[in-house]
């Protein structure tokens, strides 16, 4: 884009204005916070980056949201009903919902937003495939007609992460699905201050005076979104150490996350509260199913026989209060938690592993482990896995690269000689695991699937059954079957879950524990 002198002057004035606005906001009750990443992409449908999702929760509202127990609860929706044959859902919106541009939120806006979301999100795509029509019945009511029952309808509408269903004005939501949205107009509790957005540096929100919260108390992402501060300024810190120092000194009020090691720096500081984050992270070992030797289930089972979550957590996290052994593929502490099929006895079985390798005909091929050198949470995983492989007689080599190169390489199902890999690690937020349809580890479509390239048509069939099932007890039974099969075939190996810590000044109150960091309810003395 060509910039002429007049535009350059305007831009420079804008940058200066942004700086002075941030400073001038001192007269208002302003919350200053440090997020976990820098905001660059504003469109929550294009990317599933957590920082974009968090931004979207500030400015957009959702039809449903999950509470602290991960159960869907109505948010923008006042009433809903489903027909006896489970083929028609009707939703009615709450009164007085309005976008930041002053326009009322209508059923047409919801239909357009659902359409855009359903063209990108994995659960949305499944919903779109069984939807025969969506129709506005009046300004606040719309109906969705299905050709077959879709059990996880509310679960999908309340998807808390990956790509949540955020409601946008129809004029924006109807733009082509592949176009990255640049205009931020939601109906959520905060308004985005576009003039102060400095990509990768800082951004700001102001209270949406017109927002009408629900009456219930906030609970997770559900309940009343009461806003008690006038402004929220978000400042990205590339150095976590600097953010910790800034919090200790009172230059910021809230730090979204720090790891178990870092929190020791703030222990004993009476001006600061350190609290365990409600949503843990789950690290995993992943195999390349598309290439030998891990295309052979016995080789995968051999590695599984020597992996114990306790050892990985002890070595990589250390503090027992900061981690948890978790057998559930869909997350511990979630409605679908189950220990079915969990093979981890807490003790590595080296003899069994060696016997399995012998049965598999493993002949000493070198295993290439790829790992990102610039992401702290990955750092201990590759050496630990390499040590285990060595113990069972598998040759391996760790290849370290930076994050972007790692993502590119991990996405390739090709042989090592053609830029592929054999073994890698991945770390998930638990919130991304709770849905059997949305959990990418259960994408079992072979080379077309998520990294690891799990190939299991039976799991895809089970997902189809889960999708059509509307009874929660039967859904749970299907999930248990999925988990059992995933452990038997070793889709991947879960290495346990660990917690980060959120930190805030003691002048802050009302901070709602939620797997996604949200600041409605927060007040500042």
């Amino acid at each position, binding site marked *: *884009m*060509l*910039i002429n002198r007049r535009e*350059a002057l305007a*831009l*420079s004035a804008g*940058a*200066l204005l942004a*700086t002075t606005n941030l*400073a001038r906001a001192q007269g208002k009750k302003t919350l200053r916070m440090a997020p976990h990443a*820098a905001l*660059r*992409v*504003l469109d929550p449908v*294009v*990317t*599933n*980056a*957590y920082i974009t999702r968090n931004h979207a929760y500030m400015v957009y509202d959702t039809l449903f949201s999950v509470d602290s127990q991960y159960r869907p609860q109505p948010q923008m929706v006042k009433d809903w009903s489903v027909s006896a044959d489970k083929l028609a859902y009707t939703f009615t919106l709450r009164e007085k919902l309005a976008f930041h541009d002053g326009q009322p939120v209508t059923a047409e806006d919801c239909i357009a937003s659902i359409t855009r979301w359903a063209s*990108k999100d*994995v659960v949305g795509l499944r919903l779109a495939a069984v939807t025969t029509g969506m129709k506005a019945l009046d300004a606040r009511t719309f109906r969705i007609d299905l050709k077959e029952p879709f059990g996880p309808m509310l679960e999908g509408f309340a998807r808390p992460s*990956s790509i949540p269903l955020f409601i946008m004005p129809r004029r924006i939501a109807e733009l082509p699905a*592949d*176009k*990255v949205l*640049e205009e931020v107009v939601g109906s959520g509790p905060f308004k985005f201050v576009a003039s102060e957005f*400095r*990509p*990768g*540096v*800082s951004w700001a929100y102001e209270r949406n005076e017109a927002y009408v919260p629900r009456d219930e108390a906030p609970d997770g992402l559900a309940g009343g979104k009461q806003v008690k501060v006038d402004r929220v300024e978000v*400042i990205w*810190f*590339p*150095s976590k*150490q*600097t*953010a910790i*120092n*800034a919090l*200790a*000194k009172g*230059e910021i009020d809230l730090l979204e996350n720090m790891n178990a090691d870092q929190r020791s720096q703030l222990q004993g500081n009476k001006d600061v509260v350190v609290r365990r984050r409600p949503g843990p992270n789950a690290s995993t070992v992943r195999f390349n199913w598309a290439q030998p030797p891990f295309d052979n289930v016995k080789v995968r089972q051999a590695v599984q026989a020597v992996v114990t979550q306790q050892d990985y957590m002890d070595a990589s996290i250390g503090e027992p209060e900061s981690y948890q052994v978790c057998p559930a593929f869909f997350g511990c502490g979630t409605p679908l938690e189950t220990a079915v099929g969990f093979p981890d006895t807490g003790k590595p079985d080296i003899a069994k592993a060696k016997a399995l390798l012998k049965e598999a005909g493993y002949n000493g091929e070198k295993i290439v482990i790829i790992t990102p050198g*610039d992401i702290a949470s990955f750092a201990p995983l590759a050496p630990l896995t390499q040590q285990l492989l060595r113990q069972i007689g598998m040759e391996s080599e760790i290849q370290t*690269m*930076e*994050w*972007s*190169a790692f*993502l*590119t390489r991990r*996405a390739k199902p090709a042989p090592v000689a053609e830029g592929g890999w054999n073994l890698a690690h*991945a770390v*998930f937020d638990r919130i*991304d695991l709770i849905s059997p349809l949305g959990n*990418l580890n259960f*994408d079992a479509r072979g080379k*077309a*699937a*998520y990294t690891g390239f799990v190939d299991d048509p039976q799991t895809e069939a089970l997902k189809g059954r889960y999708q059509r099932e509307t009874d929660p007890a039967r859904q749970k039974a299907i999930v248990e079957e999925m988990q059992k099969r995933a452990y038997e075939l070793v889709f991947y190996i879960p290495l346990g879950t660990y917690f980060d810590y959120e930190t805030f000044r003691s002048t802050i109150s009302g901070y709602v524990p939620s797997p996604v960091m949200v600041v409605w309810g927060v007040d500042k003395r």
Partner: protein
Amino acid sequence: MLRLIALRVAMAVPVMLVVATIVFLLLRLSPGDPALVLAGDNAGPEAVARIRAEMGLDRPLLVQYFGWLGEIARGRFGISILSKVPVLALIRDRLEPTLVLALSAIVITVVLAVPLGAIAAWRHNSWIDRGVMMLSVVGFSVPAFVIGYLLILFLSVKADLFPVQGYVSPFSDPVAALRHLALPSLTLALVFMALIARVTRSSVLEVLGEDFVRTARAKGNVERRVLWRHALPNAAVPIITVIGLGIALLISGVVVTESVFNLPGVGRLTIDAILARDYPVVQGLMLFFALIYVGVNLLIDIAYVIVDPRIRY
């Protein structure tokens, strides 16, 4: 002089073209995919393929290259893949903190390092000389981020004299700007000072042994005048050369210093863009840095003529 400037400006065009080509090829041939970064860590392959097509990254390399060159020729540097903001606007927004930081570091360096180096040479083998050299070894050896964090710990967190982080424009609040700039400027200057002090010392030491210095002393000049009026100006050419070359050191130092003190400058923008494979931003920044180098070299050549009238181009 005008001929020199015109020649250098004309020579800059092929230099920029070579830089543009190398940067384009290096980026495209290095592993990494902006579509994957944009889609997020846990995105499925369909989402990534869709974004790649939308960004035109699935087109042949040559088509992408000539398309980009054509845009550059029209003065368009493209739009950031991630933030959708024009590259020039991004650079412009981040330029002020970096320029202010670099300028203040250079001022501190020149004001402190040149006299220190000259005095060390003048008091050769004395405790002053050894002290200056020891400081310069420390400045060279200790990484900028260690110096930065130590300064924050002692002068900011413990002594509460300076803020930990952030940037305030000197055009909006000069006093606050000075407080925010003090620690990062000092951090950046320490490394640079080590280099300049050493070069000044050796250069002045060499000049102090010259015949014209002995003549100046024989004429009855006081030592101070001999040093500042006669020795230092004649030692200036290598010092200016190193200051110019040191801009490279400064730019690499800026990246670390900006991260440690949370300054939103072009150093951080560069690192972020490289890690995210934000091709248009990296390409724009590399051209910008190349332009800076060409400009700095031109200024050095002009400075040579000013400090040493014997030099002709």
